[in-house]
């Protein structure tokens, strides 16, 4: 305990007492002006040092973060790719939804017995004039049955497998069916015409045929129900000297982009 009598202990004790007094003064807020001055006093040094250090720190910080930035970049690229895929899917689903809504409008208002089918293979680029459906004999499909979309005749089944079937489109030159002009009930033949649309042929010369006349199926063919719309007369192709009248039919259906169709059961 000899150190108690030393000068160092005396100074130390005095300092401790001063600290106690200063602490008391601080609690009373007496030291606040000194505190403000003390906080401001090293400011010039801090600013000077920071001005030198910060650019160097930023440089090395950027270098250090390059790897992280590259990783983030890769991750973001991956996310963008996923989102683009999702967007494509959503757009596809929106289109399907749109097509289904149109089909639903027709289904609600018809008395026909319909089998819903998805188009597996579209008539891409209009090259084949045929479509492949995901339903076959298992679902009740048979050859010759009418394929309908949004209430319009779009073709007929020319091959029916167990689980899939092939249909020839109404715009194909291999397609033909009986037809009737709705206004007069005169029978005729509707047939495809090498990708240029549907032609109404074999209309008697004395029959009334004008632009805008609606043409539907006549019901002569037992596989194709009567009264299914084929299209409307858009142009009269024959002249007065021809044996029969011919007309071009307009169908609002996009034959190259069919997604869902119905096959009509008799």
């Amino acid at each position: 305990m000899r150190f108690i009598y030393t000068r160092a202990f005396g100074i130390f004790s005095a300092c401790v007492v001063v600290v106690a007094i200063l602490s008391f003064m601080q609690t009373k807020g007496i030291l606040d002006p000194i505190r403000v001055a003390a906080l401001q006093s090293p400011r010039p040094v801090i600013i000077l040092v920071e001005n030198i250090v910060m650019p160097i720190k930023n440089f090395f910080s950027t270098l250090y973060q390059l790897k992280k930035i590259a990783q983030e970049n890769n991750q973001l690229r991956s996310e963008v790719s996923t989102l683009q895929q999702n967007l494509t899917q959503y757009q596809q689903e929106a289109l399907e939804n749109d097509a289904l809504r149109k089909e639903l409008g027709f289904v609600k208002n018809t008395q026909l017995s319909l089998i819903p089918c998805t188009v597996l293979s579209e008539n891409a680029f209009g090259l084949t004039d045929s479509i492949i459906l995901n339903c076959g004999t298992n679902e009740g499909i048979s050859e010759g049955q009418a394929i309908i979309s949004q209430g319009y005749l779009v073709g007929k089944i020319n091959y029916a497998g167990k689980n899939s079937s092939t249909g020839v489109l109404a715009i194909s030159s291999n397609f033909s069916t009986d037809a009737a002009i709705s206004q007069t009930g005169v029978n005729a033949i509707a047939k495809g015409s090498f990708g240029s649309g549907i032609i109404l042929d074999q209309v008697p010369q004395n029959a009334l045929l004008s632009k805008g006349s609606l043409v539907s199926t006549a019901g002569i063919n037992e596989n194709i129900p009567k009264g299914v719309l084929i299209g409307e007369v858009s142009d009269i192709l024959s002249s007065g000297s021809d044996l029969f009248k011919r007309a071009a039919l307009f169908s609002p259906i996009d034959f190259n982009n069919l997604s869902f169709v119905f096959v009509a059961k008799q």
Partner: protein
Amino acid sequence: MKYFIYFIIIIGLIGFNIGLFNNLQIYGQIPNLLLLFSIYLCLEKKDFDFFFVAFFSGLLLDFFATNFFGGYTLSFLVVVFCLYLLINNLLVFELNWQVLSLLLLGSLLLMNSVLWLYGLLVFKLGLSSEYIGIKIYAAGILPEFFYNWIVLYPMYLFSDFVKKFIENLSAKRRGF
């Protein structure tokens, strides 16, 4: 005059501490240049200037800290006083990096212990609404020691320079 120089050095060191090392933290720790400077002055065994430096260094740190006032001043004073007792009464050693490292570690442990005890005391007395737990001090002690150890030699050179500068100044004033 020398006390004025010490005061300027203390302000410069705290400015350096904040300006430089606040931007170069290791595990949230920065070196305590003021403590190192006080320790070096204490090891000189010539006078009691280290009390002045420790007192004002602690006071300035207390103004900057959010803890209850007086913790740093008291801990600095305790550290330099214990160090003074140790090197003057108990220990005979040669100043090398091993001894300095050991003294640094001991000083940091003592400083943090006093800070913790002081915080606990003022908390128990109802003078402060919060105190920093021992676990927080313990968790920071190794990185704090490591960072202080890195600047140990530069600070030794700086303290040596300051000592020689003040000695020269005193000699000139005495007419030598």
